[in-house]
């Protein structure tokens, strides 16, 4: 299946050929042709001024009786005695969705040795009910047990929406939950809303952040999404009331064919890219691994993490765990400083979601400047030490 062209309406202007991210539309013998590379993304439909392009009848998937599903759930990510900040963010976002739908907001907390304080905290962030499953087998995360627990709970309680953080945990086991519940899932959303008919409007970046797509799951419930950390605002309310339900699940939920042998916490704090508010990244422009002390010094001063381009990783100047980009980590901190990085598209896709981007490069034509909020055309060896001095001066005053 592919996009169709209405020859009556088509003026053969060729705008769609440039717009197609799959390069599937071509102008041949004064006709627009769509090839089998079409991914049905619909970008051409939106760009065509003449309404000449259309998608074939969209799929609906085997449908299901949607009545009888109610409530919004947030998976409360718990690790080593703490609830992840993204869960608080999602409860605040979920609160708005639940209010729009006029339904209950629930949180699901899985773990071992869970006290009520943690559940009360979830209530403060908006949950009206917290389902707690407390079992020694849940002390360490494994996809199998965690997904079986949520699947079982969802089968019994039938929520219409389930949200989880797009963390390494959420992006790992939530797809299994969706597959077991036979429902759709949208990964890594940055925006959520509810349409009048109750559809969850899930917006996410696609094609490396160059376009945004809004996705729905019209015929299955629950509607499921993972949401990028740090895009929703956590709002703590005072005096919120809610109930805590400790749930017993069948033993089968705690069986697993996986055994956790060892958990080794990241020693290197500066590699904590996904959590950092500030990231200072260095590239091949640094010229040697020793010169990375400039990047590390600036990062430390700003209480940030150290990132690197693949160029710098390939040179062996930084460990792969610091790499930002297509084959490294995707990050979206409040401030991203790219120092001596050219800005190859594989690097850009991993950091363009950052709120403020500063680029330091001596080449005024470097592509990194295309995405920078503030561009500094300078030799980094002159600029960075001066900038460090400036921050220190401010601190001293």
């Amino acid at each position: 299946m592919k996009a169709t062209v209405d020859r009556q309406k088509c003026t053969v202007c060729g705008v769609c050929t440039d717009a197609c991210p799959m390069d599937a539309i071509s102008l041949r013998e004064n006709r627009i042709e769509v090839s089998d590379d079409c991914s049905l993304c619909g970008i051409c439909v939106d760009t065509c001024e003449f309404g000449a392009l259309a998608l074939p009848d969209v799929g609906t998937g085997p449908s299901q009786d949607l009545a009888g599903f109610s409530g919004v759930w947030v998976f409360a990510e718990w690790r080593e005695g703490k609830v992840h900040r993204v869960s608080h963010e999602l409860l605040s976002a979920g609160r708005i969705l639940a209010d729009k739908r006029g339904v209950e907001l629930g949180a699901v907390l899985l773990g071992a040795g869970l006290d009520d304080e943690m559940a009360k905290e979830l209530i403060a962030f908006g949950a009206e009910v917290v389902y707690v499953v407390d079992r020694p087998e849940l002390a360490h995360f494994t996809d199998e047990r965690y997904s079986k627990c949520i699947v079982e709970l969802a089968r019994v309680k039938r929520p219409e929406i389930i949200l989880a953080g797009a963390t390494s945990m959420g992006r790992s086991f939530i797809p299994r939950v969706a597959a077991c519940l036979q429902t759709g899932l949208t990964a890594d959303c940055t925006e959520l809303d509810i349409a009048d008919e109750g559809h969850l409007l899930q917006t996410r970046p696609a094609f490396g952040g160059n376009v945004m797509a809004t996705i729905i799951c019209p015929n299955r419930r629950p509607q499921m999404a993972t949401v990028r950390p740090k895009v929703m605002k956590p709002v703590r309310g005072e005096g919120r009331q809610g109930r805590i339900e400790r749930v017993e699940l069948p033993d089968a939920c705690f069986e697993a064919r996986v055994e956790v042998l060892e958990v080794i916490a990241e020693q290197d704090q500066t590699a904590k890219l996904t959590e950092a508010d500030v990231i200072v990244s260095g590239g091949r422009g640094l010229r040697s691994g020793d010169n990375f002390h400039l990047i590390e010094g600036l990062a430390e001063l700003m209480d940030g993490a150290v990132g690197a381009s693949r160029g710098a990783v390939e040179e062996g100047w930084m460990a792969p765990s610091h790499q930002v980009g297509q084959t490294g980590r995707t990050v979206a901190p409040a401030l991203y400083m790219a120092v001596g990085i050219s800005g190859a598209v594989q690097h850009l896709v991993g950091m363009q979601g950052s709120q403020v981007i500063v680029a330091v490069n001596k080449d005024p034509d470097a592509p990194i400047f295309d995405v920078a909020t503030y561009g500094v055309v300078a030799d980094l060896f002159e600029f960075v030490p001066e900038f460090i001095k400036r921050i220190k001066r401010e601190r001293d005053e």
Partner: protein
Amino acid sequence: MHIVVCIKQVPDTKNVRIDPDTHTLVRQGVESIINPFDMFAVEGALKIKDENGARVTVLTMGPPQAAEALRDTLGLGADDAVLLSDRAFAGSDTWATSTTLAAAVRKMGDVDLVICGKQAVDGDTAQVGPEMAALLDVPFATFVKKIDVARSGSITVHRQTDEGTEVWKVQLPALVTVIKELGEPRVPSLRHKMRAKKAEIAVWGNSELGLDPNSTGLCGSFTQVVRVFSPQRRGSRVQLEGSIENQVEQLFQYLKKARVPGL
């Protein structure tokens, strides 16, 4: 040991850059490449083959030209390749893709380990691996950077999480999704390339898989794209000017005004 590696052909982004005005990808004569994470998956499988002996089958679902991607992996040393190609598979979302791939793995029958890339760089969903594992009802581990097959009946994997490293023992049959640290792909050898040139690549359509047509392709997809739009352009870019001292001062003031953390 029979290992299946799932690979996907994606548009090559090496030579494209982002148009600063329209903020879209500038793609001149873009070619297709194998999703980089899937190359690590192929490498991982070949390493197991080198060290412990294994049969490696490479699997992809895609248009007929995806056969070329499969041939490339045969050139690296994979034993067999299967292409799932049928108009009925077009327009699949991750659910329909996983359903189709899982059906192919089931048809093969004797698979011990499925290796997928962490995610495909065109869609970036990272869902197909875990969904396939659920459909095949096998245990799985994501973000794997090391696979140890010394024991029989299970593997030991090291996985990279946001917090650090976890070491898991996973019973076979199983599925893993892998990242860069597993190892850079090798270069094709002449011997394998010669064989790859002549190799038959099996093509399976839905008549071979026998899936309900309502569960494949666009019809079998639960999710629908309802709107595609350009991301909001960031506020107009500020290019700093003047001496180093001047630029330092300007940047400092801008960042202070923007209230970025860390200052």
